[in-house]
Every structure is written in structure tokens, then in C-alpha cells.
């Protein structure tokens, strides 16, 4: 039995769901970051797989850019997180409600 694109897509979506669950479940900001990384990686797999099975390099290109974005996100996000932690001593999501409308 050959591995088809569908296998990869199912895998990607399983990972994506894991990421989503993490995003929804986690209250610790650091953990939330991990979950987003999972989401990004899940898509990367999907892109690479599509790229492979269709024979088009655009998918890989997108994966590159996603990695670049992930890297920038981590840099900025962690920076902010540290500043936040230094001011409040907590990185709990439930305590960040200054945006209450």
C-alpha cells in the first residue's frame, strides 16, 4: 500500500487538531506558543506533501516562509513575554484582561 497525499493530509490535520486543542486548552502563555508552533508545523507538512505529489515547488516555498515567520514570531513573542513577566510575574492568560470591551 502506497502512501498517498491523503495520508499526509490526514496526518497534518491530526497535528493541526492537536495544536488547536493546545491553543484552546493552554492558559500558560509559553505553552500557547508551543501550540502555535505545532499548528505551523502541521501546515508545513501539508504544504510539503502537496508540493511533492503535485510536482510544484510553490508548496515548499510557502513552507519556507512559514518557517521564517515562525522564527520572527518566536523572537518577538518571547521578547514581549519576558517584558510582561518582568512586570507582573505571571504569564497566565486568564489574568490578561485589559482588553475587556
Amino acid at each position, binding site marked *: 500500500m502506497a502512501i498517498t497525499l491523503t495520508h499526509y493530509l490526514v496526518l497534518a490535520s491530526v497535528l493541526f487538531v492537536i495544536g488547536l486543542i493546545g*491553543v*484552546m486548552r493552554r492558559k500558560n502563555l509559553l505553552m500557547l506558543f508551543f501550540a502555535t508552533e505545532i499548528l505551523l508545523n502541521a501546515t508545513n507538512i501539508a504544504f510539503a506533501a502537496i508540493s511533492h505529489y503535485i510536482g510544484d515547488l510553490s508548496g515548499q516555498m510557502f513552507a519556507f516562509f512559514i518557517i521564517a515567520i515562525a522564527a520572527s514570531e518566536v523572537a518577538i513573542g518571547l521578547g514581549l513575554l519576558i517584558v510582561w513577566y518582568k512586570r507582573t510575574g505571571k504569564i497566565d492568560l486568564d489574568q*490578561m484582561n485589559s482588553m475587556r*470591551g
Partner: protein
Amino acid sequence: MELYLYIALFAPLVGSLYSALFSGSPKSQQVGIVASGLLFTSFLSSAILLTYVMSGHTVHVEMMTWMATGDLYIPFGFVVDQVSVVMMMVVTIVSTVVHVYSIGYMDHDKGFNRFFAWLSAFVFSMMVLVMSDNFAGLFIGWEGVGLCSWGLIGFWYHKESATWAANEAFIMNRIADLGMLIGIFLIYWNVGSLQYDVVFAEIGNLQPVIITWIGIFLFIGAMGKSAQFPLHTWLADAMEGPTPVSALIHAATMVTAGVYLVVRSNAIYDLIPNVGIFIASLGAFVALFAASMALVNRDMKRIIAYSTLSQLGYMFVAAGLGAYWVALFHLMAHAFFKALLFLGAGNVMHAMHDELDPFKMGGLRKVMKGTFVMMTLASVALAGIYPFAGFFSKDLILEVGFVEHHYVIYTVLLLTAGLTAFYSFRLVALIFHGEERYKLFGIHPHEAYKFMLVAMSPLLVLAIIAGSFKMTYFQLVMNLLPATQYHVHDQTTYWIMTIGTQLFVIAAILFAYKKYANWSNVPDGSSAMERSFFYKLLWNQYYIPKMYEEIFAKPYAELSRIAWKQIDLKIVDATVDAIANGIYKTGENTRDIQNGNLSTMLRWMVVGLVVLSILAVAFTVGYNAVGA
């Protein structure tokens, strides 16, 4: 000749504008004199035009374009032909007299200058009405006289009754004007033009049903202006205006515009005899109906107003039966003696300090000789006694009815002639004869200014001799109107009819004198006659004004209030507000979503993602399904 036409037309306008300039400043005699002078100029020009027309010419000018769009082309065009020149003469003569008279009558009024502005403006509108060569121009004049009538009825605007009457007159006329407007629309879309000559030349080619509708709608217009039933109530109320106004507008000129319209459109009405019969029947009905109300009225001016209404009925009988020239002739004769009657009544009013109840007068002939003579002669003319003007015109209408074999109409008109004589002389007897009841009220009557009486004299002369123009007049208008001679063929019948009518009328006069010449008390509503049903019915004008009030005015006001308070505010507006409120409330309620908790927000984000992707899938599936 065009110059004279323009002078005749625009001299009153100049007079009006000149007077309007001074309308803000206190009374100055010269305004009245200038306005009267300009009116006299207009009269002279009309007279010159009359001689010109009598020599067999007509004048037709087109001053400028008014409206032109699509196929519609309406110019300011004026025509002086055999019919319009007669009207012009009537209008200018009566209005010149009334202007001069008003200088005396309005002597003590604060609004002297304003009065002349309105009065001259009225004459201008009337001239436009009669001289226009198309229906749109006629409509300008038509509405113009309506406006001036509004301004003049409500001239004493501090009086509630006057302004109410003014509005009533205007609005009632508007109802009729709508009919006229529809008539004009019908003509335009079927003929393609509004010029008289084109319309009358083409009208025969149309389908009979369309011609009938045109005739009906134009007549509805005429009904309003000429106060025919059921739009008659405004005329009696219009007596709130100054008396010269009643004389000029509500007796001699404006109210006869309806008759003029029918006469002018004779080419149309000739083709639809059925409508003609209806017009004649309505005319006969109104003649009797109005005369009956005049029998018991105790307001001098209203009695004369009802008499006017009654005479308008006569005119419509003639016009409806196709005797257009007879209608126009009666219009002319009536204008003279009725204006005279009104001006006389004005003198009496002045003398009696605006008292209108003839029962409170009596014996005035001693102090007001001139007025007495004039009013008596005018009443004789109105009653139609030989050789006064009324005899020639009114008896002719009776003959028309007889010759055309409409015996019912003839009988009604004959009866009305008797009633007319009765109420006219009831008025004369009550005012000028009998005991001097006015002394009870401490009034010291005095004769009007000399020049007012002099001003009235031309009307007196015309009221007496107008009948002798009959043949000249007939020669003149037969160029334009159907020249049917109405003669009872049998000589015996003719003489019996004429003499019989005369005797009947004289009997009515004598009865009136007998009953009222020696009246001594002021009735207070306690006599048996005053309590009878018919008296009450007539006294309340058949309860028609009250009915209109109850059926139209009050429900309209109530409905308006409901439309505003209930429908507009409570339904339409409230619906919109409810929608807005709903959205606002939704916002308030969903505000909790934005509670600032990032975790919750993330969850909502996922919900949104799911919804969006479901939509995407659904649309794709749907699209493929449709595409396949």
C-alpha cells in the same frame, strides 16, 4: 391692434404692482386713483378692440414660449375674438366701476393700498383667463383669479370667519381645478396640443367616449369656479370679503368663468349633447336650489350671493342646451345688474355700519335715495321685467328651454324666476321700506359719497339698456358660436308665454312688497314660520355646510392626526427604531464575548474558523452540484 391688446392685458398688472409697492405704507388716495386710471385705460383699449372686432377682424398674438418640452408646446398666446372681447368689455367695465367705487368704500381701511394691489391683480388674472388662446393659459388665469379671490375674501385677515372662508374657497376651487387639469391632460394626450384652434378643429376625430370624458372633466373645473352644486358652499361664505370684491369677483366676473369655459369649448360640448343635458339639468337644479335658500336668509350679501348662484344656474342651462350665445348674453347682462346690486348693498352696509341683517334696517329710502333707486332698478332687471336687461337675457333662456322641448327645465326655471323676483323685492322692501327699525340699534345711516354713486351709474345705465344690444351682440358672436335663433314659432304661444311670465314675476314682486314693505319687528326665531321644518332646512342651507364639515373636514383632520400620531410615529418610525434597537441590544448582549480573556477569544477564533470552513465547503459542494 396688438398694442391695444397688450395695454388692455397689462395695464391692470401695472396697477397691481404699483399698488403693491405701497402696500406696506399707510393709505394714500393716489394709489386708488392710479389703479383706477390704469383700469380705465384697459377699458378704453378693450373698447377699441371691440370696434375692431366688430368690423370683422380678430387679433391673435403669441407673446413668448411658456413651456416647451417633448411634444408639449405652450406659449403665452392671446386672442381677441368675438367671444373674448365681450368678456373683456364686461370685465373692464365692471372692474373700472368697482375700482372707482372702492376708493370711497375702502376709504377708512388700513389696507387700502393692499386692496388695490389684489383687486388689480384679480383683473389681470381675469383678463388672462378670457384672452388666452389655449387651455394652459386659461388655467393660469383660472388659478390666478382663485388666488386673488383667496386674498380678497380673506382681506380682513384678523377675522377668523374671513380667513376660514378664504381657505374654503381656495380649497374647493382646487378640487374642481384637479378635474380641469385632468381635462387638460386628456386633451393634450389625445390631440397633442392645447391651442383652442387646434383642439377645436381636431376634437371631432376623437372617440366619443374620450370627448365625453374631456367634457366632463372640464365641466368639473367649471363647477368649482361657478360654484355649482355640490361645490357651491364657498360662494355664500365668500361674502366675508369686502363688498366691492363680492361685486366684482363673486357676482360679475370670476364665478362666470365656468360659463365662459363651457361657451369657449362649445366645439367640444356640441359633440356630447348628453353631457350638455346634464349641465342644463344641474343648472336648473342649482337655479331653484339657490333661490330657495335665498328666500329665508337674513344676510343681505348672502341673499345676493344665492341669487348669483341661481343666475349661474340659468347660464348653465343655456350653455348646456347649446345656446351658448344666450348664456354669454345673460352672463353679460347679469354682470351689470348684479354688480350694481352688490355695490348698492355695499352702500347700505356702509350706512348701517356693517350691519347685514335686512330686518334691522327698514325705511332707508329716505336717507339713501340714490342707492334706493339703483338697487330697485337692479332688482327689477334681475327679476326680468321689460324693458330691463334681465328680460331680454333671462326670458330668452326660458324660451330656449321651451324650444328645445325640455319642459321640466322650463318649468323649474319659470318657478325660479318667480322666486327670484320674490326674494329680490323682499330684500328691497325690508331695506328701504317700512319702519325705520335701525333706530332701535342706534345707527345713523348716511348716503355714500357722491362719486361712488356716479361711479355706479354706468352699471345702472347698462342694466337698463343692455337688452337693446341683443341684435348687435348676436351679429357679433355668431361668427364664433352656433348661431341658432330661439323663437317660439307659434305667435300666440309666444305672447302667452312672455306676458304670462311677466305677470307671474310682477305678482311675485307685489307679494313680496305686501308681505315685507310694512315689516315692523326684528324676528327672533319664535314665529311659527321660523320653527317650521322647511324654514329650518332652508335656513341651514339644507344642512350641506354642516354635512361637509362632518363628512369631510372633521374626518380629514382626525385621519391626519391618526396618520401622524399613530401610523407615522407609532408604526413606521417605531419599526425602524425597533430594528435599530434590536441591533443595539444584540451588541449589548454579545459584549461579553469581548471580555478580554484571550483564551476565550482564541476559542471564538476557532469557532469562526470552523464556521468559515464549513461555509467554504458548503459553497464548494453547492457550486459543484450546480456546475455538474
